[in-house]
């Protein structure tokens, strides 16, 4: 397993229009020039108007952090499908024992990243390591320690649950028949049932049971609760939490259900159009992104150049802003522009995630005179 020496990654990363232009070329050479700028924690330059702000974190894990063992690490991982970039220079660190939630809208590159990690896809550039091994050449003894719950929970439709259990048992050295039976009981499933007779949610449960009974050190799940009703989702999460409680387990999962992520994840990463724009603890993400309502006397002035602006919603005399790294300077900046009242707004992970993924902030709607 990889040992990492100390280094703290940037707190704020800024994706400038120039870098955007560099990204447009699918066959550019890898290198610093095309990388998201690492601008450091202190004295971070203000992003140019219209730039996308990328939230990093003080707790970002770099190659250099001493004493941390990494279960997953990627370096400038890039994957193209033809001339479309699905994953763009993603550098990710998941420490052992961490529950990492990988978020992002549809088509943001979550599944591609996961498949590269598992060796099911090859990267166009960059590297990925899992439990200290290059993902392109994962040895069988390492696969024995990795569990994978695939998106959609596709299993052999004509098979019975017990047939799949036999198939798993023949390969995985740590297969636990009793644990599998217990999980089936918990999910109220019979080993005699055929996969094609099961609902989406039940297939998800079978898939999870088949994976967990292998007793994996690292569990990778690709949108495991997709299309699952709330009751089954809750049971699914309970099982996941049970697994997490076992010391030393690492879980990487992607999800669209942000309440699930909030419940179980230690760290989150947000992928947008293939770029990892957030990699921090959940608490840090909530702390660093603030939603505020600002009331003005007259018409709302242009706010697009407010430092750290992530999202902006304007209606007549007031504006709701989502700002990264909100502090006293922001308040002063807004007061200078004639803000009469500034109120912090309570926001959930879902609110912040939506703001974060809504594209570049624009005041176009305000100019038209309408609300959002």
């Amino acid at each position, binding site marked *: 397993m990889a040992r990492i020496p100390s280094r703290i990654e940037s707190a704020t990363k800024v994706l400038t229009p120039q870098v955007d232009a560099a990204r447009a070329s699918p066959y550019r050479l890898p290198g610093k020039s095309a990388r998201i700028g690492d601008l450091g924690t202190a004295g971070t330059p203000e992003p140019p108007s219209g730039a996308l702000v990328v939230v990093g974190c003080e707790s970002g894990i770099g190659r250099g952090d001493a004493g941390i063992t990494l279960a997953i690490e990627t370096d400038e991982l890039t994957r193209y499908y033809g001339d479309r970039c699905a994953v763009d220079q993603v550098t990710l660190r998941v420490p052992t024992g961490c529950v990492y939630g990988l978020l992002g809208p549809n088509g943001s590159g979550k599944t591609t990243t996961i498949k590269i990690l598992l060796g099911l896809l090859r990267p166009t550039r960059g590297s990925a390591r899992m439990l200290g091994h290059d993902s392109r050449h994962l040895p069988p003894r390492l696969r024995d320690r990795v569990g994978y719950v*695939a998106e959609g929970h596709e299993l*052999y439709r004509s098979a019975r649950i017990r047939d799949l259990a036999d198939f798993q048992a023949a390969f995985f050295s740590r297969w636990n028949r009793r644990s599998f039976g217990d999980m089936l009981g918990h999910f109220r499933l019979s080993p005699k049932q055929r996969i094609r007779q099961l609902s989406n949610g039940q297939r998800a449960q079978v898939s999870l049971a088949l994976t967990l009974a292998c007793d994996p050190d690292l569990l990778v799940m690709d949108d495991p609760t997709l299309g699952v009703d709330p009751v089954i989702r809750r049971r699914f999460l309970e099982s996941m939490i049970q697994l997490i409680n076992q010391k030393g387990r690492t879980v990487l999962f992607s999800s669209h259900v942000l309440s699930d992520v909030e419940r179980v994840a230690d760290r989150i990463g947000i992928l947008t159009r293939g770029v990892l724009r957030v990699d921090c603890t959940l608490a840090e993400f909530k702390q660093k992104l603030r939603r505020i309502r600002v009331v003005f006397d007259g018409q709302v002035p242009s706010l697009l150049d407010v430092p750290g602006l992530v999202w902006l919603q304007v209606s007549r005399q007031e504006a709701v802003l989502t700002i990264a790294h909100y502090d006293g300077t922001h308040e002063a900046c807004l007061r200078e522009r004639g803000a009469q009242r500034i109120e912090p707004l309570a926001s959930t992970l879902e609110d912040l995630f939506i703001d974060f993924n809504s594209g570049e902030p624009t005041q176009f709607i305000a100019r038209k005179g309408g609300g959002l």
Partner: protein
Amino acid sequence: MIVAIARKDLRAGWFWIAGASILFTGYAIMNLATWPAEFTLGRVVRPFAMLGVIDVDTRFPLVRLSDGALLAMLYGIGFGLWHALPEVGGASGFFFMRPCSRSRLAVGKLITGSVMFWLPGAVATTVAVGWCTWASLSAPLEPWMTAAPLLGWLIGYMFYLSAVAAAWRPARWYGGRLLPLVLPVPLGYLMLEVAPSLEFAWAMGGIYVVILWYVNVYLLTRWEG
């Protein structure tokens, strides 16, 4: 490992073996029963043949069974796609994420598929040979004669391997993906109609089979998606 794959595939695909065994055994019996020299149906047919009313194939019954190549070909394509597609389709994550090298998984699949393919052919040929023995044909019965019906089966097997290659081939366009299914068509024709001897035909098929085994193992090893 191979046993686990075999058990999984046999549980899922027993109906292929059962169905094909019934179909091919039926085909063999029908063929033997209509041989115009000896049997009940044959006796009925023979006078018409002598009068030239119908065209009757008077080749030795076992040799006639090589005509079953068309059926074997259809079985090979259908069974091959059924056998190979799920592993690279929806269930690919489940199949590939096992503590085992991909080449071993590929070999396991191909051995299982080969057994499942040849089993119905073996059943049908055994019944045909048994029939000929039991019926005490006036013609001599030698072991090499089974090479003729099995040649048809070999052609079917070539199509099975080609169907597996089509399933595991990383082509996006369906036309390109199905290309491997076209290759054994001229080869099968040459083996049945042009090859100067049975041995030559078997050698041609054998070379194709060996190449396709390597190709299929390579394809699964390199598969991504």
